């Protein structure tokens, strides 16, 4: 049976979080009433002209630097012409042959080592508006158009066809997202559309040098959608090849409900965008001085941070990768380390309970009510024996729910660990009395039976008894019976 290799390249659109749009001073804020963030310029009314938002270029350069790109010293805008009701000028101002940044790369961990994916180019462009169909798109009698998003600045990041599996594609986007978020030029919220993916996919028999015919898949608007769409498409293409068929060069769209990709248009039907230089804008001339000054704004990026965490805090590489995926998680972690020496304990809590709670509440760490100092205090309570490891989980959840300090929660709920032997002895005696079978087993040499007895004591003390103390007293008592 023939083995196949998958070739994936990605085009990622990232909405820049400038305050105003790319060519006018309208707000870019998400979620406004339809057609409230519009003006004659972004509506493309007759006679209007664009004026480039300098911040967009700055953000483009910043993203380019973070992705190891060469920054152009001469860049220009071009018009991409096509008709659609959400595109008020019937052309999108984009960049064609002289993009702001080129020849970059990023690296991610595949589990079998580092993988490098080339970044072909980054270009700046304006976003289009949004059609709101009345009912389903196929049966609708009319559609409404919301132009709030029209003119929101985007960068499109085009990768080389360097990925070989849906997992790598996912890892690439995750890493890209992390880097872009670190630079703070975008929120990269897939659910709000501030990060959108299109993929170019082809398959070829393993060992072949020639690429197969590629298919573009649009509408990959979540990690899950991307993974599923790619898996489906690869299988579809292999089936076509196996049946001695021909892959058609075309654009397909991912149908989330049906779980399949659908043909949108073939290469022959592909639009001729008739790109030409935008005559209403002057070329963008970028001085080395400007690039250098922007370079200074570049924060410590995930890879550097990861290396530092390994060296400085002795974190295992896996922990360091996970913690540095998000800038906010990393800063939470670092804030904790300033007041607590056990970095590994911090990363355990972040990667374990905290991540679980955030995920189950669909929350971002920034929205989390637990502050780094509170986690530190809780760890200290754990260390000094005020609470047990088991109680700590309860306290942590309460902290998450209420935002209260761990000390307050322990006090209010009476969760303080009981380490005083005299307070525990009575409970232990009752456990011995109630479980003669276990005592007998222990005496017969089944030393494990003590575990059951400790469990009974813990249960009776509602988890507050110090398990070590319980264990010691129990053993002593049993051995002297």
């Amino acid at each position, binding site marked *: 049976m023939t083995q196949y290799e998958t070739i994936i390249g990605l085009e990622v659109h990232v909405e820049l979080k400038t305050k105003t749009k790319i060519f006018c001073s309208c707000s870019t804020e998400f979620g406004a009433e339809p057609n409230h963030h519009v003006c004659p310029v972004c509506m493309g*009314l007759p006679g209007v002209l664009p*004026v480039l938002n300098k911040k967009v270029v700055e953000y483009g350069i910043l993203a380019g630097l973070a992705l190891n790109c060469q920054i152009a010293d001469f860049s220009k805008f071009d018009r991409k012409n096509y008709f659609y009701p959400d595109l008020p*000028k*019937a052309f999108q101002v984009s960049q064609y042959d002289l993009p702001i940044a080129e020849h970059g790369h990023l690296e991610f961990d595949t589990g079998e080592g580092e993988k490098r994916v080339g970044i072909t180019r980054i270009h700046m462009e304006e976003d289009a508006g949004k059609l709101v169909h009345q009912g389903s798109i196929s049966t609708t009698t009319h559609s409404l158009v919301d132009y709030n998003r029209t003119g929101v600045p985007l960068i499109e990041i085009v990768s080389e066809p360097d990925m070989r599996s849906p997992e790598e594609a996912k890892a690439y986007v995750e890493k890209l997202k992390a880097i872009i978020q670190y630079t703070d030029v975008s929120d990269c919220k897939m659910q709000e559309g501030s990060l959108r993916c299109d993929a170019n996919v082809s398959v070829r028999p393993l060992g072949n040098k020639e690429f197969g015919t590629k298919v573009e898949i649009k509408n990959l608007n979540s990690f899950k959608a991307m993974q599923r769409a790619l898996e489906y498409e690869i299988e579809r293409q292999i089936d076509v090849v196996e049946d001695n068929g021909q892959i058609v060069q075309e654009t397909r769209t991912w149908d989330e409900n049906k779980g399949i990709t659908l043909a949108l248009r073939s290469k022959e039907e592909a639009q*001729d965008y*008739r790109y030409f230089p935008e005559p209403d*804008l002057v070329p963008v001339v970028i001085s080395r001085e400007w690039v250098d000054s922007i370079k200074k704004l570049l924060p410590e990026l995930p890879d550097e941070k990861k290396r530092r965490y390994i060296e400085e805090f002795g974190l295992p590489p896996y922990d360091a990768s996970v913690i540095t995926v998000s800038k906010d998680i990393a800063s939470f972690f670092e804030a904790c380390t300033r007041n607590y020496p056990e970095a590994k304990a911090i990363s355990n809590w972040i990667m374990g309970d905290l991540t679980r709670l955030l995920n189950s509440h669909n929350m971002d760490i920034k929205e989390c009510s637990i502050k780094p100092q509170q986690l530190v205090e809780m760890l200290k309570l754990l260390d000094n024996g005020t609470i047990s490891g088991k109680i700590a989980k309860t306290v942590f959840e309460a902290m998450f729910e209420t935002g209260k300090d761990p000390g307050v929660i322990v006090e209010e709920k009476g969760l303080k660990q009981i380490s005083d032997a005299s307070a525990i002895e009575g409970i232990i005696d009752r456990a011995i009395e109630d479980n003669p079978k276990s005592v007998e087993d222990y005496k017969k040499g089944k030393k494990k039976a003590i575990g059951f007895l400790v469990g009974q004591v813990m249960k009776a003390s509602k988890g507050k008894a110090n398990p070590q103390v319980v264990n010691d007293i129990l053993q002593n008592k049993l051995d002297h019976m």
Partner: protein
Amino acid sequence: MKLYQKTAHRLHEMLLNKEVSSEEITQSVLNRISTVDEKVGAYVTVLGENALDTARKVDRKIKDGTNIHPLAGIPIAIKDNMCTEGIRTTCSSRILYNYMPPYNATVIERLGEVDAVMIGKTNMDEFAMGSSCENSAFFPTCNPWSTDRVAGGSSGGSSASVAADEAIVALGSDTGGSIRLPAAYCGVVGMKPTYGAVSRYGLIAFASSLDQIGPFGKDVTDCALLMNVICGHDPMDSTSVKFDVPDYTTFLANNVKGLKIGIPKEYMGEGIDAEIKNSIQEAAEKLASLGAEVEETGLPHTKHGLSAYYLIAPAEASSNLARYDGVRYGYRAQDPEDMIEMFKKTRSEGFGPEVKRRIMLGTYALSAGYYDAYYNKALKVRTLIKQDFDSAFEKYDVLLSPTSPIPPFKRGEKVDDPLQMYMVDICTLAVNLAGIPAISLPAGMVNGLPVGLQLMGKPFDEGTLLRAAYTFEQNTVHHENKPSI
């Protein structure tokens, strides 16, 4: 002389001397419009009450002793491709027949700041595409000198309004000669400033890299006064240039001594009407007699200008005019089957034949596989033409030529022959490709029809053009000719 026949600078003196009120001037012009516009067809929209309101405001200022600008209270006609807030702006197109802009073009704002009296919106070739003002979706504008002839285009309404005394001054736009040609045909002064000297914000685009707004006047002085108002950097237009705007009236000196004038032979050769050639020769001799050094020169790439122009301008137009799709404003076709049909029907019904022709030309020139052969090559020719001018201006201060190769032609004569119509632009369009300034002024009459003299200058050297034009005007009587409409 009636009020409506006077120049802006003369009327300004009269206003200052309280010999007349702006209301009287405005009323006089409005009356003139009611009398003659039936025959001329200069206006798409006449602003009676609005104009009189502004006039009265100026009169109050004069009464209060407030300083007024030389153009305050002076009726001005505006080509109907400049956006005027709350006033219909049509581009003389069916597709914008009902379009009401929510904002003012920068030039309109600037005219408002000096209290100029906007008296109406003038007819034009649809979307400024044409050389005769016959391509209006509404009606043609006729030449006031002979109403069976064309007014020239595309700013024919503006030039005819000034020539027929239906406005004191006017604004037009010039993409390949659209100010200068109608100025020549109607016997008035028209100037195309350097690309970037005047903001295009609010000028409904035809070809963005060529379009430029400019003035019409009954004499050179009035043009200079308008230049003072409209020129200067505008943050809303990225292609407008930051430069120190001079007081253009300071260049109005009767002196061309030592001025070096070149006559490019390509502009005086084949295809130029013999009598026009004579008038231009006479004009050149006149300037020489006044002390200018006049000699023949050459602009070797001139012959390729027309082809380059008719690729670049339509290419940009095909994109600029794509927004008229019936979705948001303007004309929308009735009962389309679906979205695509709405686009197609709206555009088929909304645009006239010349606009469609240019959209198709431009779309073709930009298409995959043709881009390099057409659009890109045209850009290279454009660079060569620019270089021709650059080297000519190393030697000369001003270049002199006819504005049009032929006198105003009969209406209907060329409408079915686009190539013949395009040829009318051969003396004017290279100026737009090079981005330089040029002025057209009356240089005599041939068979009762005006002849236009074109002077071309270095970028941002409008001052020298104005000085040369003013000197010519002061020493000739051509500008005093009036049509007997």
